[in-house]
């Protein structure tokens, strides 16, 4: 395994800046997920690391060594592509063997290498097939196997589950961590799926517009998103975002929803009177019968597998999603009341979109800095 370091990477296509002064460090053996919507620059970045695209500025270091003028084939990388990029004119076996045929490996050692990784990925029975005879899942596994076969110290996985069906994706999401752990390689994993990111990443780097917006463990990204955008990207159903103006009361800072005060413990006084956005995860909203709760009308109920999501409207016609574990009781229609856990709510600056840190966080971060 090797460490990876990106320093001030810039890439422009004509006038459009794809990567804007991006820096990133991945420790040896770490699994880093690059997360972001399409067009964020993830794939370009990955290809840059692989050595098939050159940065305009900045440096890429693998294992501490500058990769400038090091061709793709010499970087010691394994890569799986979103579209699989299998060699259509070669059998699955030859596809997987391709990293092993470099240099003077013996036929038997190649066969061993292919066999091992094929068994690991459970495709040893289709090795003689050409890609067009493989199912999508088999293709995907073949592509992974090819990336793994050379036991590269650095593994780049470009959204490998993107083009497979939901069931397979679910399976692989469970299986991949084990596989990758067995490889012991440093991994950079690109995805657009937050669940994948959460499931696979030691750390997640959230990318948008060619920069890294936030980097941290899955918990940090979920529980302390840096801005509205990130909060919206993580979580299903998506976070409720409500325009509010915090006020100051005797018990501290609060906001009002349908004239019900929701206290926001630990918020700095500076937010008072500032236009803000309140971020409420649907799990942080519960149906309640406690008096003084917020009256709403139930608009629609969507039962998902493990939870039930209800869309409700406040008196001012603001939409709020409420999530509760499946099987727990709740209103299906008509009037209801909801309660909000203020301590689980986020407050974002409406103009900048940045999350306003609580006093406690501010203190820890300040100390850390």
């Amino acid at each position: 395994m090797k460490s990876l370091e990106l320093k001030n990477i810039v890439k422009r296509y004509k006038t459009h800046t794809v990567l804007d002064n991006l820096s990133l460090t991945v420790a040896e053996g770490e699994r880093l997920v690059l997360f972001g919507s399409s067009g964020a620059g993830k794939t370009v970045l990955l290809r840059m690391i692989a050595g098939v695209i050159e940065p305009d500025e900045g440096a890429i270091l693998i294992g501490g060594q500058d990769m400038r003028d090091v061709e793709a084939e010499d970087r010691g990388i394994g890569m799986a592509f979103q579209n699989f990029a299998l060699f259509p004119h070669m059998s699955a076996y030859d596809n997987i063997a391709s990293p092993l045929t470099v240099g003077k490996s013996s036929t038997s050692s190649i066969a061993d290498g292919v066999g091992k990784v094929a068994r690991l990925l459970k495709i040893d029975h289709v090795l003689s097939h050409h890609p067009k005879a493989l199912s999508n899942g088999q293709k995907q596994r073949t592509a992974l196997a090819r990336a793994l076969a050379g036991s590269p110290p650095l593994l780049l996985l470009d959204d490998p589950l993107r083009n497979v069906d939901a069931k397979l994706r679910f399976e692989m999401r469970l299986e991949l961590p084990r596989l990758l752990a067995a490889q012991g390689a440093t991994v950079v994993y690109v995805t657009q799926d937050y669940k994948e990111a959460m499931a696979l990443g030691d750390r997640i780097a959230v990318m948008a517009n060619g920069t890294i917006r936030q980097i941290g463990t899955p918990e940090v990204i979920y529980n302390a998103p840096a801005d509205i955008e990130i909060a919206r990207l993580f979580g299903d159903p998506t976070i409720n975002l409500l325009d509010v103006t915090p006020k100051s009361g005797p018990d501290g800072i609060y906001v009002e929803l349908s004239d019900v005060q929701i206290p926001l413990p630990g918020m700095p006084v500076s937010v008072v009177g500032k236009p803000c956005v309140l971020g409420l995860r649907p799990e942080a909203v519960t149906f309640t019968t406690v008096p003084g709760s917020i009256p709403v009308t139930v608009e629609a109920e969507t039962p998902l597998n493990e939870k039930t999501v209800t869309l409700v409207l406040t008196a001012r016609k603001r939409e709020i999603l409420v999530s509760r574990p499946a099987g727990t009781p709740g209103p299906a229609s008509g009037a209801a009341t909801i309660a909000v856990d203020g301590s689980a709510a986020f407050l974002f600056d409406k103009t900048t979109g940045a999350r306003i840190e609580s006093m406690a966080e501010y203190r820890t971060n300040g100390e850390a800095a």
Partner: protein
Amino acid sequence: MASVTTPQKTASGFKISRRWLPYVLSLPALLVCIGILVPFFTAVVYSFQRYRLSQPWARQFNWGENYLNFLYDPAFWNTLKISLIYAGVTVVLELALGLGIALLLQKRTRINNFVSIMLLMPLMTAPALAALMWKLMTNPGFGILSYLASLVGLQNFRWASSPDTALLTVVLVDIWVYTPFIMILLLAGLRSLPTQPFEAAALDGVPRSFVFFRITLPMLTPYILTATLFRLLDSIQQFDIIYAMTQGGPGNTLTVFQVEAYLNFFQSTNVGRSAALMIILWAITYILSNIFIKNWLRLRERARGEA
């Protein structure tokens, strides 16, 4: 675990910097073509000279005079007119016929595949030789076509030797040689179209004329455009067929650009005029191909974007 490759080690000795690679790869082809650019510029110089091989003493730069002379030279305007007519007529007819045949052969049956291979034969015939064949067939004495024409009452059908039918005859030969080219392009186009829209339309009971004009034709456009480009540019430069059939005659009926320029050079040895004619022809083809290729690249980009 397999060895970790180091930056110094390469899989093969071939190593050219990525920056230079494209130039290295395309340079030999470029050099070969640039060798051909030199005579091109020489021809441009000739076109600005009064230059007859038979009067070497009178050779001098007359600048635009060769071109200016064209303005009031009826022979030139005739050449321009007949070249455009020839190109227009052949391309339109070949396109219509080629599309028709391609539609007939669209289904992948054994017979259709066999026929499409057979139809390629005229394309394999050198145009100069094809012209010779048709000359034999239209000979008024023993020519089979003349005989057949006489059977249907055209006793004195004179094919390439009458100004009324000369154009028709060479166009016929051109169609015979080149329709298969268009046919094969469009056939491949038709066969590569996705089937879903057609199935959907058939299920919905959409009228077939509607399907043809609203689905087939638009999807076939890139193919039609390519075929048109290749044929138009070749056709406006037609030489072999016309020269072999009539040498530009009868009268001045078929003195298209290349024939006129050829005769100007080889018979009149009027190099200046010949070169000027060619430059004008080149300019026409350059402009036409530019328009076509730009449009077609755009179309292709769009097709890729959708895919």
